[in-house]
């Protein structure tokens, strides 16, 4: 037995000397933190990369490079020629798509992202209003690293439930699902800041419309369960019960936080199809103008009724809008597929059906408490 050890050790040493893998030493590669895709002016695509390089002066500098080519790998090679360090994409955190590109088709881009094992499934996707290169190449006064900044921006907003989550996994999940379409946040350059401005909604691989930032709350309400969200709305005149407050104003802004929501979707009629959508919300009243007697249970009850009316109307509006542009971002089709045996659903069939779909919305709203001062 011991003889074997004697064979193994020299063999092993030999292989150490001969075989060696290609290295990617952290401080000798340029770390791409963000990539933006646009439609190219001369060639098929234009790519803007944000690369973080470390130089010996203990400082990192961030390079923004735009190149044009037929493929994304070709763009990477072109960008490499402009940099002192090899570009790597293992630390990529955000991928942006220009609006024009998103309206064209995102399928091939998603495919190539998923294919590459160095690309993390947890990176964020976003659509840029306008062109990504404009957004990225601008020299912001207070932002050192635009890649890092956009990543933090999105992470923060998604974590605190201000925006729908758009990790590569989730987007790809919806893209490749027959019964659902994707929704991706929209960002925009706003002066010296970058801002989330709404939600882009897709029909298959094409962006068909967008929803405003206010509506993104309803989108999230319909797609996910809230754990602790924040929400502000304006109760219109028709929502406000007449005896809630001595009516002087016809509009009533309210804000809630610590929202917990639970949603339940049921297919009641497979032929139309018709869905029952039940939503239960619990929240804390944060602000209301003009002030109401929030200690009074009756007032609270009336306020809850007003909220139910308001939410029902708004949700119906958002769903109707999506139906109009044939984008099932809420997964009604998936519900249909999982409830109807042998449905053989396809995207075309779904979108045909989706136009005439009926949704009955039932909202329950409960105000749990208000602040520490009445």
């Amino acid at each position: 037995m011991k003889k074997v050890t004697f064979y193994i050790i020299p063999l092993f040493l030999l292989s150490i000397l001969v075989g060696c893998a290609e290295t990617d030493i952290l401080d000798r590669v340029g770390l791409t933190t963000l990539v933006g895709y646009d439609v190219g002016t001369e060639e098929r695509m234009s790519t803007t990369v944000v690369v973080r390089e470390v130089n010996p002066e203990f400082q990192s500098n961030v390079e923004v490079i735009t190149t044009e080519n037929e493929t994304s790998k070709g763009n990477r090679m072109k960008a490499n020629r402009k940099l002192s360090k090899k570009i790597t994409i293992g630390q990529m955190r955000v991928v942006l798509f220009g609006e024009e590109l998103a309206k064209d088709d995102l399928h091939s881009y998603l495919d190539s992202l998923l294919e590459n094992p160095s690309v993390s499934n947890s990176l964020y996707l976003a659509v840029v209003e306008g062109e990504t290169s404009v957004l990225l190449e601008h020299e912001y006064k207070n932002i050192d690293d635009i890649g890092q900044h956009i990543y933090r921006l999105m992470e923060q907003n998604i974590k605190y439930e201000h925006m729908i989550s758009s990790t590569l996994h989730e987007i790809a999940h919806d893209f490749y699902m027959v019964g659902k379409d994707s929704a991706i946040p929209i960002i925009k350059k706003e002066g010296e800041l970058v801002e989330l401005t709404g939600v882009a909604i897709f029909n298959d691989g094409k962006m068909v419309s967008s929803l405003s930032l206010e509506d993104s709350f309803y989108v999230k309400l319909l797609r996910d369960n809230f754990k602790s969200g924040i929400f502000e709305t304006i109760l219109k005149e028709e929502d406000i019960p007449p005896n809630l407050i001595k009516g002087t104003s016809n509009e009533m802004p309210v804000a809630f936080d610590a929202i917990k929501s639970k949603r339940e979707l049921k297919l009641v009629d497979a032929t139309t199809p018709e869905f029952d959508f039940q939503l239960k919300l619990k929240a804390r009243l944060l602000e209301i103008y003009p002030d109401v007697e929030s200690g009074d249970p009756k007032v609270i009850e009336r306020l809850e009724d007003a909220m139910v009316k308001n939410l029902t109307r708004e949700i119906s509006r958002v769903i109707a809008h999506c139906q109009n542009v044939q984008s099932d971002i809420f997964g009604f089709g998936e519900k249909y597929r999982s409830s109807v045996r042998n449905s053989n659903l396809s995207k075309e069939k779904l979108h045909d059906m989706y136009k005439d779909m009926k949704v009955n919305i039932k909202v329950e709203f409960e105000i749990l408490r208000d602040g520490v001062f009445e």
Partner: protein
Amino acid sequence: MKNPIQLSAKDMINSYLLIFVIHSAQVGVGIHGFQRIVYQEAKQDAWISVLLAGLATHLIAFCMIKTLEIYGSNDLYGIHQDVFGIWFGNFLNVIYILYCSVAFFSVLRNYIEVIQTWIFPGLGTWFISASLLLVTIYAFTGGLRVIVGVSFFSIVLALWILPLLLIPLKFASVDSLLPILEANIGSILKGAKSMAFTIIGFEILQIIYPFVKDKENVKKHVHLGLLFTTAVYLIIMLVSLTYYSEGKLDKTIWATLTLFSFISFPFMERFEFVAVCFWMLIILPNLCLYLWAASRGASRVIKISGTKFVWIFSILIFIGTLIVQSRTQINSINTHFGNIAFYIIFVYPIILLLVAMLKKKYSSQKEQK
């Protein structure tokens, strides 16, 4: 009943270790991407296929144990020689040795492919192959005690990965599993059949049986091991089905590894990179056990010593890994091997049991006369 294997108690193992041997022999490279293959047949009912495949392993293991019990203390090679005579028996033995070698090769080549795809696209096949072979040889030359030890540790040290599967569950939707039983029985069974490549390995029982000390407990522990494997596969299948959407699962080649991609800790992200390397520990018992099974067979057929066999074997496998280079070649080997394995593992033991029982009846009648 000729040439039974006589062993001293020192060379034998306790039967409860069979739980680990069976489980570690089954779990290997197949687990990386079995979801897609089964899903393509059985759609969202793929988990039923997994369950059925698990059930089949229990059934086959039952047959195997019955066959082995007839012979008391003998392995498959000895049984072949006894049932079919030296010449035809040895022919079957050679086929079985070849089967073990191909299984070994397939595990090795698939793992190399995973390593090259995920982390080291530039690292030479020859290097990974040689280093893994050396580790395997080192374990093999330690004898059965070390091989079983490797199986044991590969499971115990990998148990912590299972709870990590809870993390992807935050993206899970139960709707993906509905409606249950939409696929017809035929495609579910087809799905179960395509599990063959993933779920084989427990045939090592036929070789290791004479080395077990307390043979009366073998049944219990083998079935426990199989149950554990089925449970692991079922959990992974359920997690994958709910985590991926149908189109994405259909396109993800190594669904289990991609599953890990979302797992991150405060000190480490991209867990799949660690998982791919860590998998070496999980495939190591696979390699060792197949090598050991092949070497046992070779020593019974042509009386070759273990050390000599292992070097010849390794060199052949090494050359083999260099020849098979592209993904398509590997995939076609997997498919063909899976098909052949299905007949060798899931069909042949039943035939063998029937033949062995007939022969036993016949010979006992002859003795009575």
